[in-house]
Structures are given as structure tokens and as C-alpha cells.
């Protein structure tokens, strides 16, 4: 046994191993700090500082330090400085471990005049709750989501027939084709453009189930997606510069076909009065494609629309009749027609090149969560993909997935993990004080009331300590009624004493070691 220990001591406890590990730690830290300036703190924390491998690296350095301490037994007075320095390092690390695994750090969000004891923890959890109806849901299971930096694929049955498939720690929504639908006659497409030398993406769809619109503005140019069948009406030369469009029938007609008269208002604007089966409609072609009721109210869902060609006769409008592009040419005083395909086409007069990336006449375009690497202030929120009875559903923070199971409502929610304070606290007032004659904040202060009636003021450098918790002023936000809510950082840190003790011992050790060495030399 003693022999074995000696061998381990020689192999691991020697300084070479220790310094190699320190060197490795330095490299990791340098890389992380640079990575952080390109991404952000939350991401690097998940990737490095909170990751298991990083903890193992620190742990192995601690092991080397401990073995080196053992190797210097039995106690000799000349090694006192050595013992002090290295033991205090272990003490500080023990404090750190206690903080990480038994401590609580989170936010308490204080809305004015409302008592709360909720702590919002930094990590997220998936909560499965069930009940008779929406208002009587009771949580039956919570799954704490791991601190991951990148997307994580799994297959975990969290409820009968319900699988947790994919976890995106940071996401953004990107447009994608949705499932094929039975409605036809619509068009959805992804375009790629080079506009003024810059590469841009354009996504338009007129499918009713799409989550993107049929109109988009890029660098001041309006792109409008219109049905292909409308193109015929648009290019027909009838003497009119406008036509009517029936959205339901997807057909157009001209004023002359239905013997409608065009009138001119006192201010010189054209208008058309049209008698529908039900009501009188007035169209103002130059103002809006939608008709107005008698008393000037625009009818948003009208089947009948009027399309004025004059409105789009500018340098800043591009009409996309599905894969046919129409743009006004000022020189020729007429619309030019370009057939688009997957090949690059350039648009005359505008510094624009365009091609179709993907198109569909049956699929809508919906925004789906996609994994991203967060950067800057952008934190990105998690998204969870669950598969229920072979259908995929996304669960987001404000978008639970709900279904009924055995006559009960089941809800899958994604939320910040929660903890509770052993007391309740209420915000009396939040105040930002400015330096005189300036807009520079000098202090942020929350006046709070604790449930025992005690009043306290929490501001920067003046936290509140109560029942083992410390509360710090962290941030604030404006509520919907114009009042200020305050965010306090709350911390319960059982490792604190060890860290302070370790710090003092370490300093003592360093000074002792230095003075002793001086005396010896």
C-alpha cells in the first residue's frame, strides 16, 4: 500500500504534471477569453466554465496539489509556507465546490407592491403538468435541462407516447417550408439577392398558413408577391391603368366589363363606386387596394380588390408574379418582364441580381426554431422539440404544447427553474438617482419590505442579508403601467467562509514564504 502510494506520488504529484496541467489551463483560459469576445459570456460559460471537462481539469490540478502536500509529510517547520499556500488553495476550491453544488444564485423579480418569494434560477426546466382544465394544471414531472452549449439530440419518453427529441440551448426562428397542405394555388419561395453589392435573402409567401408575409422591404425596395394568374391582367392592354381582382375566384375584371364608372373627387383623386350584393363599396385605386365602406372605413377582408399599375411604377417596387418579375423602367416608360429561375438574373436600372433558391406551390413557410451561437447581448432562449404520437412539436418559453390524455389536459411548458426564499419580499419603490446636472446614474435603489414588516434599502454595494440569503440590486425594467419593477440577485453561498478563510491563509502563506526565503538567502 505504502509502495503504491509512493508510486502515485511520484507519478502524479510531481511538479512536471502540475505545471503541464497549469499550462493546459492557461491555454484553455486564453482561448475562452477570445471566444467570449466573439460570442458572449453565457455561451462560453456553458461551453467551458460550467462544462464537466473543465471541472475535471481544475479537479486534477487540485489532486496534484493535494498529493504534493502529502508528499511533504511529516510536518517540517521549514515547509510551513508551502503547506499554508497549497492547503489554502484547496480550501478556496472547496468553497467554490460548495457554492456550485449547494448554493443558490438567481433572480428575484419584484413587481411594485406585490409580495413574492420566487427565485428564478439561471437554468431552464421542462414542466409536465396535467389537470381538468387550463386553470387547474398541476405539475407532475419536471426535467432540469442540462447546461449545454450546442444542440442535443435524445430520445427520452417523458410521458406515454411523448418523446423529448431535441434540445436547442440557444435558438432563433428561421423560415422553412412547412408540411404540404391541401390548399393549392398559392406560392412560397426563398430568393437570394445581391443588392448594392450586399448579399441578402428574401422570403415571401401568400399561402394562408404561412408565417411570413407576401411583402418585404430590403434596402428601401419593396418586394411584393402576387399570384401568377394576376400577371395576365397586369400586362393586358385595356386602356385602364387599374383592374379589379377577386381574391376568392382568383380572377380579374376591368371596369368596362361591369360597366362601372370612374369618378374624380373634388381634390382630384380617382374613385370608383361599386355595388356588391350586400353593400356599397368605394375604391380609391391610388390610396389602397382595399375598398371602403360608405363612411370611410377600410374593409380589410374584402374579396374584391383594386390594383393600380400606377402605384408600382417606381424605382423602388418589384413585383413578383411568382417566378415572373416585373419592374418599372423609367427610361422606356413601361414595365419590364424577367423570368426567374435558379440561375442568377440581373435587374436593369437597379443594382440587383436575383435567383430563386427554393419554391413551392403547396407548402406554406413557417418560422421554426434553429440552433444558433449567441453573441453580444443576445442571449437566445432554449427550444425543445417533442414528438407526440409521431408528430413533431416545438415547445418554447411562451409556447407550451398542450393535448388531452385520458380526459385530462396535459401541458408541456418550458420555464426558468425555480427556488423559494424562506421569506417574502415586496418592492415599495425603485429609484434611479442621477448625478447632478447630468444623465449619468449615480445609484439604483430598491426600497423593499420583508414579510415581518421590516423595511430595507438595497442599492449597489449595499446588499441586504436576511435568513442566510443576500439580495443585491441587479437591474430593473418598466412595467406595462409605467412603474418600475426591480430585479434583485439573490445568493445563498455556503462556501463563502471557506473562500474568505482560504484567501487570508493564502496571503499569509505567500508573505510568510517570501519573508522566510529572504531571511534564508
Amino acid at each position, binding site marked *: 500500500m505504502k509502495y503504491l502510494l509512493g508510486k502515485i506520488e511520484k507519478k502524479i504529484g510531481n*511538479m*512536471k504534471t*502540475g*505545471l503541464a496541467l*497549469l*499550462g493546459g*489551463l*492557461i491555454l484553455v*483560459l*486564453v482561448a*475562452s*477569453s*477570445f471566444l*467570449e*469576445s466573439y460570442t*458572449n*459570456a453565457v455561451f*462560453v*460559460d456553458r461551453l467551458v*466554465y460550467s462544462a464537466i471537462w473543465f471541472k475535471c481539469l481544475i479537479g486534477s490540478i487540485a489532486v496534484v496539489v493535494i498529493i504534493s502536500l502529502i508528499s511533504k509529510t511529516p510536518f517540517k517547520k521549514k515547509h510551513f509556507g508551502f503547506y499554508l499556500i497549497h492547503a489554502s488553495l484547496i480550501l478556496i476550491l472547496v*468553497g*467554490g465546490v460548495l*457554492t456550485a453544488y449547494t448554493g443558490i*444564485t438567481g433572480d428575484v423579480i419584484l413587481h411594485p407592491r406585490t409580495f413574492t418569494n420566487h427565485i428564478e434560477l439561471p437554468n431552464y426546466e421542462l414542466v409536465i403538468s396535467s389537470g381538468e382544465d387550463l386553470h387547474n394544471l398541476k405539475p407532475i414531472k419536471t426535467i432540469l435541462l442540462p447546461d449545454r452549449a450546442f444542440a442535443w439530440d435524445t430520445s427520452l419518453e417523458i410521458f406515454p407516447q411523448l418523446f423529448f427529441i431535441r434540445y436547442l440551448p440557444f435558438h432563433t426562428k428561421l423560415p422553412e417550408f412547412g408540411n404540404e397542405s391541401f390548399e393549392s394555388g398559392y406560392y412560397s419561395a426563398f430568393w437570394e439577392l445581391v443588392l448594392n453589392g450586399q448579399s441578402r435573402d428574401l422570403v415571401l409567401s401568400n399561402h394562408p398558413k404561412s408565417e411570413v408575409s407576401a411583402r418585404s422591404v430590403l434596402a428601401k425596395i419593396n418586394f411584393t408577391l402576387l399570384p401568377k394568374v394576376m400577371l395576365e391582367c397586369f400586362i393586358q392592354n385595356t386602356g385602364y391603368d387599374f383592374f379589379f381582382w377577386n381574391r376568392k375566384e382568383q380572377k380579374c375584371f376591368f371596369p368596362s366589363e361591369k360597366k362601372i364608372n370612374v369618378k374624380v373627387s373634388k381634390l382630384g383623386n380617382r374613385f370608383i363606386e361599386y355595388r356588391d350584393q350586400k353593400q356599397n363599396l368605394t375604391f380609391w385605386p391610388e390610396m389602397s387596394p382595399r375598398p371602403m365602406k360608405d363612411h370611410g372605413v377600410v374593409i380589410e377582408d374584402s374579396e374584391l380588390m383594386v390594383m393600380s399599375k400606377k402605384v408600382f411604377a417606381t424605382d423602388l417596387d418589384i413585383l413578383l408574379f411568382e417566378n415572373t418579375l416585373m419592374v418599372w423602367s423609367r427610361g422606356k416608360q413601361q414595365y419590364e418582364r424577367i423570368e426567374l429561375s435558379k440561375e442568377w438574373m440581373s435587374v436593369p436600372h437597379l443594382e440587383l441580381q436575383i435567383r430563386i433558391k427554393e419554391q413551392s406551390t403547396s407548402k406554406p413557410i413557417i418560422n421554426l426554431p434553429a440552433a444558433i451561437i449567441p*453573441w*453580444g*447581448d443576445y442571449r437566445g432562449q432554449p427550444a425543445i422539440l417533442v414528438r407526440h404520437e409521431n408528430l413533431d412539436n416545438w415547445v418554447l418559453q411562451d409556447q407550451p404544447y398542450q393535448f388531452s390524455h385520458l380526459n385530462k389536459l396535459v401541458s408541456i411548458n418550458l420555464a426558468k427553474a425555480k427556488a423559494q426564499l424562506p421569506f417574502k419580499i415586496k418592492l415599495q419603490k425603485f429609484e434611479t438617482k442621477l*448625478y*447632478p*446636472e*447630468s444623465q*449619468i*446614474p*449615480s*445609484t*439604483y435603489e430598491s426600497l423593499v419590505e420583508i414579510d415581518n414588516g421590516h423595511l430595507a434599502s438595497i*442599492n*449597489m*454595494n449595499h*446588499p441586504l442579508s436576511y435568513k442566510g440569503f*443576500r439580495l*443585491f440590486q441587479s437591474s430593473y425594467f418598466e412595467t406595462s403601467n409605467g412603474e418600475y419593477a426591480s430585479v434583485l*440577485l*439573490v*445568493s445563498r*453561498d455556503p462556501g*463563502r467562509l471557506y*473562500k*474568505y478563510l482560504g*484567501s487570508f491563509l*493564502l*496571503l499569509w502563506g*505567500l*508573505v510568510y514564504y*517570501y519573508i522566510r*526565503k529572504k531571511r534564508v538567502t
Partner: protein
Amino acid sequence: MKYFIFLALVMGGWFPHQNFASELCDNAKIGKIAVFANGRIKPFLVHALDRMMFVTDDKKKVMSSGVKNYCQLSFGNNESKDRLIHEIKVKIQHHDIKKMLGFDQPGKNAYLSIQQFLNQRQAFIRFSGQTDDQRLLATLNVYLDKMDTLDKILNGQDFKIWIANQWIYSQDNNYLEQVINFAPLKNNAQSMKVAFEYYNWIYRPFLISMVILLNAVMIFMVGKYHSWVVFLAVISLAIQLVSMTVRGWVADRIPLSNMYETVMLAGFAANILGILFYYRGKEKLVLITGIFLNIFTLFMLEFSTGMLDASINPLMPVLKNNFWLGVHVFTVMVSYAAFGFSWFVSNVFICRDLFKKSNKERNQETTNKFLQIISDALNIGVVFLSAGILTGGMWADFAWGRFWGWDPKEVWSLIVLLVYMIVLHGRYTNWINQTRFIILAAPAFLTVMMAWFGVNYVLATGLHSYGFSHGGTIFFILFVSAQLMLSAIHWVKNTILSRRSLPL
């Protein structure tokens, strides 16, 4: 002072029917007037130069006519304001912003008159709506801030003056006669502060200390009179101490809250360390090292204003704790001074090695001397840096509720400590021999530079980046590449060239 008297004479002759503002602005006393702006009461001179520097970014012009221009912009009549907003130019350095404004020469700065600059407000707002780049956005916000400041200046809303026992905005022209008489605020602490700040600016104490130290270096070169060198160094330190004290008193806090003030303390501490080391070992190299480091930092304070902002600004709320600010920053800066000491001495050794004749053996005595100095400096550095990191942890625990948070400044201070730990442990076990130990102290200091400047100027993220400025990045890159080059040349000469010469 002379400048103002001269101006007053010249301008007085030029305008026989001068309006009140020009009389006021040409008066030498204008700089001393107390104004209330941006969180505190200060001399007009300091406020005017600060504001003009912030708005125009053009140091040369501001130094020559900033006070007068600012005065005219604030107090002048519409006619003179109108003339000045066409005359005074605003410098624009940022590449993308120049491009947005239609300037195509990449190397040159763009200059817009104040009028043109203010006319671009909508363009700046539009541009910030279009970009996702956080740093560009921050720069654009600074320019928008400059426009707001200019508006305030032109409307006379940028500062208040003390007239008839109250602080009022300067556009209130009825009382202006009283301004010039500088009657108010006499015999109280506030007016004392204003006066001290004014003279602390006018007499440029850091420049004087620097000149004294340069004289000390000259005496040192002559040899023999080392006690005179120490005497001059102590005088220079005393002047610096007075100036720092005035600064702290005026700002009403420990003057250790930004890059300017840390550089100020580090040079001061290095000089003191040099004198202390000198009295212990009677080694003249340490004396001159301390003086050189102090000259270096004083030079930075006086002349690299693009990187180090000397203005005294209100403290952000989290830093408002004199005890922790003092203890934490002081310990860290003493350690940086000690590491800087080892850096300089190590470089002296490297240069001696480079320029000595190759056949000459290294003198063991000299090596021991260098070794002694560098180990001493590193030991002090490590003790103080550990203290600095730990007090930083305690302050963070006290103010933010966490001892350690892997913030870039924290991470880099840990890197510095670990690097020096490796060097010291390596020396202890003799893997790093005496010469290598001396030579390694110079490049190891680059980690200090990264923790000190690089985190703020290069990484520019995290909680500690209180001051990002353009000049800092260039300074940092120059420093790092110069040191690496010197170390590399030395390494090449010592290993590759000497190995090749062996068979001969």
C-alpha cells in the same frame, strides 16, 4: 496663462464694438470660473476642453483654441455661433461611418464642420438601425451623443454658472456681467476645489515630474551622484503625489477608477519600488529602472490622450466604494508595477546579451545580479497580484454576490498569476535555468499587458471594460509585437546561431 493674456490683447484690438461674449471669452479669467456640469462643479477650462475634445476629437485644435471656441458657442450671439459651426471641424475615424458619409480614402480621417455633422443626424440614426455589429452600434451611439452635446452647448444648456446665489444656465444673458468678475464661490471648499483643479491642469504637474525625472536620468548617466538622482526622483514623486491627491480630492473618491488613474499609480509605484530596492541592495540598475518606468507612464499620461482619458467623470454605481476600490486596484497596480520592473530589467539583460561580443562569456556575477532583482520583483508581484485577485473576489462577492465569475478581466488576471507561477515553480526545480528565467520575465509581462490593456482595448467585452478607445488597441499591438520581436531575435541569436558556430 500667457496665451489668454495675448489673446485678450489681440482680440481686444480687433473688435472695437465687441459684443459681450467675445469680451468674456477673451478674458483670461474665464478658465477659472466654476461651472456645474456632468455631475460636479469644475473650472470652465476643464469642462470646455473636455467637451470640445469629446465633440471634435481633434486634440491639436482643442488645445489651441478649445476654450475660446467653447465659450463662444455657449455665450456668443447667433452670428458668431453661426460662423463657428461652419469653422470648427469634427473628426470621424471609424471606417464604416466614413464610408457611410461618402469618404473614400481609407487612411485619412474625415472632417465635417459642426453644421454638416449635425445635419447627418438622421443618417446616423438610420445607419444604426441597419447594423447588427455591437461595436459599430456603440460607436454610432457615441456620435449621436456628441450631437446631443452639441445641441446642448449651442442652446446654452451644457453647464450652469453661479450667479446671484444660484446655478443657472448660461443662455440667461442678463447676468453675464457678473460672470467675468468671478466674485461668487469665494472662501469655501468648492471654490478651493475648482481653483486647485484649475492649477493642477494649468501647471501640468505630470509634465514637470517627467522633466525632473529626465534630468535625473542625465545625472545618472554622468555617474557618481546617485544621491542626487534619488533626490530628484523623490521630488518628482512628491509632485505626482500632490497631483494625485488633488485629483482624488476634487473627484471626491480614491483616484483609481479608470485606465488613466491606474497608469498613474503604476508608474508611481514602480519608481518607489526602484528607490526601495536601491536602498536595500545599492544596485543602481534598479534605481534607473524605476525612473524609466515612471517616465514611460508619465509620457503616456501626458501625450497619449487618445488612449487614456484624463477627464474626471462620475463613477458608475458599482464602483462607488472607496475602500474596495482602493484596496483592490492598489494591490493589483503595485503587482503590475513590480512585474513591469522585472520586464524592464529582463529587457536590459536581453539587449546586453544581443550587443555584447559573442566570444565573451556571460559574467556569473552580473547574471546573479539580474537574477536577484527579477526574483525579488516577481515575488512582490505575485504576492500583490494574489492579494489583488482575492480582494477583487471579495469586492465582487460584496457588490455582485459572487466571488468569481469568469469575467475576462478575472480570467486574464488569473492567467497572469498562473504564468508567473509556472516560471517561479520552474525556477524552483531548476527546469528553467538562471539565464532562461531572466529572459522569460520580459515576454511573461505580455500577459500583464493583456490583462491591463488588452481586455479593455482588444477583447472589449465583459463587466470590466469601462473605457474602450481606439488608440489603445494600436498601442497594445505595437507593444506586444515589439516585445515578441526582441525576444525572438535574442532567441534566434542565442540558440540557432550559437549552435551553428559550435563546430567551427
